[in-house]
């Protein structure tokens, strides 16, 4: 498992926002993306997860290796914690949800409908989904939003365990997770204006 990003450029709303982004991520590594709001962290992560096409460059990665987690957790409010998690486990063809419940301290909430969870508990459930996917590369967009300090520790432990098993994680976050990680600041990759005379120059 290796993620290789070469000279990647991405666009948001038809406008290029990042260009020339290159990095590699190998098994066992954590890479944290930094950069001011609006620089394009989310867009970059969506491009790597395969949700939107890249403007230029390429991402070499088996699409079957990515587990993506965004701002929204994709929880169904009328289903219980266990049902939500079991559904994702079935989608990814795994069966055992107990370790995931345990890792994020959700055992006692297992039968509670997701609509009765607090924001932090919902987030924990959303992150527990990563464990049942059984996929090696986690692509995470602001995973610690609305988590308290102890939950952040739980999350950091989960990432550490994941890397120890040969996984890797690409995380966009602003807080220090206390992880052994590489840092990539996206500010220098901000796209400059299009070159004049480009074919579709009139539109970009």
């Amino acid at each position, binding site marked *: 498992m290796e993620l290789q990003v070469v000279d990647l450029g991405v666009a948001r709303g038809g406008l290029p926002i990042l260009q020339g982004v290159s990095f590699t991520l190998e098994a066992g590594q954590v890479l944290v993306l930094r950069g001011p709001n609006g620089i394009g962290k989310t867009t970059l992560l969506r491009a790597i*997860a395969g*949700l939107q096409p890249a403007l230029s460059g390429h991402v070499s990665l088996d699409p079957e290796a990515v587990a*993506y987690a965004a701002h929204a957790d994709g929880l*169904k409010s009328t*289903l219980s914690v266990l049902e939500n998690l079991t559904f*994702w486990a079935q*989608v990814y063809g795994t069966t055992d949800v107990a370790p995931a419940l345990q890792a994020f301290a959700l055992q006692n909430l297992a039968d509670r409908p997701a609509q009765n969870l607090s924001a932090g508990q919902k987030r924990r459930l959303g992150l527990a989904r990563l464990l049942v996917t059984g996929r090696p590369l986690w692509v995470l967009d602001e995973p610690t939003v609305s988590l308290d300090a102890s939950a952040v520790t739980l999350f950091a432990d989960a990432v550490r365990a994941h890397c120890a098993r040969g996984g890797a994680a690409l995380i966009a976050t602003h807080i220090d997770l206390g992880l052994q990680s590489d840092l990539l600041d996206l500010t220098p990759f901000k796209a400059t204006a299009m070159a004049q005379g480009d074919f579709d120059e009139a539109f970009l």
Partner: protein
Amino acid sequence: MIALLIRDLRLAIRTGGGFGLGLAFFLIIAVLVPFGVGPDSAVLGRIAPGILWVGALLSCLLSLDRIFALDFEDGSLDLLATAPIPLEGLVGVKAFSHWLTTGLPLTLAAPVLGLLLSLPEPAYLWLILSLLIGTPALSFIGAFGASLTVGLKRGGLLLSLLVLPLYVPTLIFGAETIRRGAEGLGTATPLTMLGAITLGTLAVLPFASAAAIRINLR
């Protein structure tokens, strides 16, 4: 994919919404029409095939925007798009579960409402048959419309406008089957056409819908 189907059905049952609403709407139409047209059973019997098909179609329309919108709002659609289920399969499952929760109950309820509208006796078989064959097309066409409007805040009205002309052939052949059945004429042609449309939409539209969803997600 079976897990997805089970989840969708479970959600439909727990939230109520889809199920009851469509059926209730169908009932309302069938009950209100006699008040508008008058109690003459000969007139009612003549227009019953059309009323039942239009009613089924409108009831179907009612719950279309829920097919993808809910999953889009809570982020499930993003996650499902990166899951190992092909998007085409996802659309198929979603449309199928929409049919199970609207088209199928409508088909089962239609004969009862046919009684209310004094539908002629020989037509009942064709009523059930045409709805059974035709309503899956309504769900799949509807899923296509829903996938086009999934990114829009207030897509409901636009969805109806987009789907309406697409429903015309199904409606024509469906109602025609019952009308011919009621008059004892041959129903083979409209029924075959209806089946052909359904099979065609089942085979092709999931691909168009998946393309539309991919465009909407990026």
